[in-house]
């Protein structure tokens, strides 16, 4: 059974992600997940508050269907195709244990942050809310996220996407190396 539950290596995963991008191009769309956040704002009436959300969101319904599919895919993969543990580098596990994240190497997501019990901690709530907020704000400000810039944009050799991806990494490195030691 192990061949089913084992994670896919990078050289399988990466080309398959490219295939998803080409499938979407082939059906006349593009690969960009964060647009959904704007569509969801628009669909829930945010157009009354800002011009940015006044567009025909029903034309973007296809992308909402893609994320419904992504959720189904997540359900199928986690229930039938995975043992839900992520093996990471030993020295990274040690570092995370130093931060009090003992589930490193034993879970798919850190239980110290993503378990229901953890929600009673104000710090954990702040991590989830601030993290999500920055992702949503930053993705729209930058005009795309990992899929729209790092995969679609760079595949199309777009300089703006390169700038955005450099920004992603500056932000990520600052968070992990400068801010994590302060919060964990």
């Amino acid at each position, binding site marked *: 059974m192990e061949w089913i539950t084992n994670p896919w290596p*990078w050289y399988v*995963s*990466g*080309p*398959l992600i*490219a295939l998803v991008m080409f499938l979407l*191009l*082939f*059906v006349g769309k593009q690969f960009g997940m*964060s647009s959904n*956040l*704007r569509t969801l704002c628009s669909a829930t009436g945010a157009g009354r*508050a*800002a011009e940015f*959300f006044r567009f025909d969101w029903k034309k973007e319904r296809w992308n909402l269907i*893609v*994320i419904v599919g*992504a*959720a*189904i*895919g*997540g*359900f*199928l*993969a*986690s229930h039938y195709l*995975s043992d839900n543990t992520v093996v*990471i*580098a030993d*020295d*990274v596990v040690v*570092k995370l244990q130093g931060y009090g994240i003992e589930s490193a190497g034993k879970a798919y*997501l850190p239980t110290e*942050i993503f378990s229901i019990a*953890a929600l009673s901690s104000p710090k954990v*709530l702040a991590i*989830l809310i*601030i*993290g*999500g*907020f*920055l*992702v*949503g*704000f*930053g*993705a729209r400000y*930058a005009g795309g*996220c990992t*899929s729209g810039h790092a995969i679609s944009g760079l*595949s199309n050799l*777009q300089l703006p*996407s390169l700038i*955005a991806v450099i*920004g992603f*990494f500056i*932000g*990520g*490195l600052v968070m*992990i190396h400068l801010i994590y030691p302060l919060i964990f």
Partner: protein
Amino acid sequence: MKTLVYLVIGIFFGIIMYKSEAASWFRIYEMFEFGSFHMYGIMGSALIIGVLGVQIIKRFKIKAIGGHEMSLKPKKMGFSRYMLGGIIFGLGWALAGACPGPMYVLTGAGYISIMIVVVAAIAGTFVYGLVKDKLPH
């Protein structure tokens, strides 16, 4: 019919994200610690295929289904919005350990807490829409 196509592409994407572990907080943390080649390998190999494929599409003028142009419009040039927006996104990506695709994948996988991240991301997008004219682009 079209709905089904998008749904199947989405399911395929969700399984890839989960099985590649690109949806795992741990893999994202490890990437920023330069602890493993895994995430770089995923993005690098996706890009090699992506760049080659897009070049082929352009060279041979391959059309989308129904003879439409493929959505490969150049992005508007600029600096501030990409750099500043990128940094803000990166901070959140590393903090929540999730980007906008995997968020939904993890929701489907049953991680209830990730829905807080999704709602917060929608709120972030909403606030951007409110203040966007005051920001450098």
